[in-house]
């Protein structure tokens, strides 16, 4: 048994921590995260409030846990939507080839160059700020990313002899994409999805920080951060906690994705 890379192990541990907290928040948080107590505001860490309370006396731990859930949900939705559409486009481009492939990839290049934040601001300007629009914006930036990875990986698989054998058997290009290409590009797609999960978490935090994501009272690390900003001198810990959560989640998924790539990419393995 080969030893697993360190980045994979650390990444997996951090990811488990974040997902665990998010999952737990579905059934239990120390307090109701919306429950205010003005008299108990800016409370220090105590047995009752492990990380203290915020400017409205809400329990910080409970808020962070609920925000983890929000963050995971947004990232999952965005990566699933953008990932499926992008992968499908990449597979299609690779299967058809010719000018269709060129066209799809040129459009993907344009989408790739388009700043996500700008797109989210545009969506918010037209449809109003909402979590749904934030998810749509993050999904949208994922489409070209996955289209590129899927197309590049698929093009490699199309040159394999087992694909030629499938063509000799009389399979259509669509059937080959389904039976051979997709299963054989699953690894790079999953690696990319893990990395994009980190990007999506950061994007959600950024959009919520700007007021373009989760709307009150829905919890979000990004919004906790922006609310705490005005109180930096009074209670810097209120900015530090959500900041640490964002770093943990982004780093966790980033390291996990890197680690998975190290384990699954045969080119890198051979170089070792």
């Amino acid at each position, binding site marked *: 048994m080969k030893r697993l890379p360190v980045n994979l192990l650390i990444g997996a541990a951090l990811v488990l921590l974040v997902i665990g907290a998010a999952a737990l928040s579905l059934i239990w948080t120390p307090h109701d995260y919306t429950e205010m107590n003005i008299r108990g505001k800016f409370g220090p860490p105590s047995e009752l409030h492990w990380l203290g309370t915020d400017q409205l006396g809400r329990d910080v731990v409970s808020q962070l846990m609920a925000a983890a859930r929000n963050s995971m949900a947004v990232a999952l939705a965005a990566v699933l939507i953008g990932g499926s559409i992008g992968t499908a486009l990449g597979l299609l481009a690779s299967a058809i080839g010719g000018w269709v492939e060129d066209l799809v990839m040129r459009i993907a290049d344009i989408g790739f160059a388009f700043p996500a934040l700008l797109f989210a601001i545009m969506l918010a300007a037209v449809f109003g700020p909402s979590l749904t629009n934030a998810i749509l914006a993050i999904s949208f930036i994922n489409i070209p990313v996955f289209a590129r990875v899927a197309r590049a990986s698929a093009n490699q698989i199309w040159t*394999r*002899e*087992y694909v*030629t*054998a*499938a*063509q*000799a*058997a*009389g*399979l*259509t290009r669509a059937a080959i994409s389904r*039976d*051979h290409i997709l*299963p*054989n590009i699953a690894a790079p797609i999953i690696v990319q999805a893990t990395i994009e999960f980190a990007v999506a978490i950061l994007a959600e935090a950024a959009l919520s920080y700007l007021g373009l994501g989760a709307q009150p009272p829905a919890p979000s690390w990004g919004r906790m951060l922006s609310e705490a900003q005005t109180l930096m001198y009074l209670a810097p810990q209120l900015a530090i906690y959500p900041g640490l959560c964002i770093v943990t989640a982004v780093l966790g998924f980033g390291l996990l994705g890197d680690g998975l790539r190290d384990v699954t990419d045969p080119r890198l393995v051979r170089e070792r």
Partner: protein
Amino acid sequence: MTALVEAKSVSRHYRMPRNHLLRAPEMLTAVDSASFTLNRGETLGVVGESGSGKSTLARMVMAFEAPDSGEIRFDGTDIHALGASDLRRMRQRFQMIFQDPFGSLDPRRKIGWSIAEPLRVTQSEAPSHKTAEALEQVGLRAADADKYPHEFSGGQRQRIAIARAIVTRPDLIVADEAVSALDVSVQAQILNLLMDLQDELGLAMLFISHDLAVVASICDQLLVMQHGKTLEYGAATQILNAPAHPYTKSLLTAAGA
């Protein structure tokens, strides 16, 4: 009776990479008006050095690419004039074996699944007894269907590829360097298997190799190619005994005949 495969003056050109911006790219003639006739149950050997156009000819016979001129008839039908779905159905009748026993099976699929692949094109539920039968015909066990390619040796994988090629009971098998990647002892086993199957199933074979020694042992007819041109074409015994072209003689010497 019509011939099983009839190639009439088949040519194929490729555009070479442009080496001067203003000059038109040069064309390379990979196959230059090749003609042959292959009857049912017989074997045509195609020999020639690397780059002589053997694989290009095979790809045209398999209808993976169309000739620029000439035509290829399979059982009287011009396969390059067929519509996509008719061609797909016709493919049940001509199958292919490849060179690389490690590349021609999808690593993520059980071999039973891969062998049944051609059957699923025409029937949604491929009967497992056909897969089992094909496995036994190539000297493997029916129970091997549940294994993955990495569990087999190169020679065994080539047997699996042969099982996939015969599962639809085709009339023709195109074998492009099908034994070149194997050890000499394994080569002989696979060649024997192919000849046995040919007798048993009445297969015609288009057998491609750069090694005349390999081809000589199993062919009824020979086609010798160089730079896309046909140097010699005729009965194998005649060409082997009295090669007309110096190039064929040099191939014979190289093969140690």
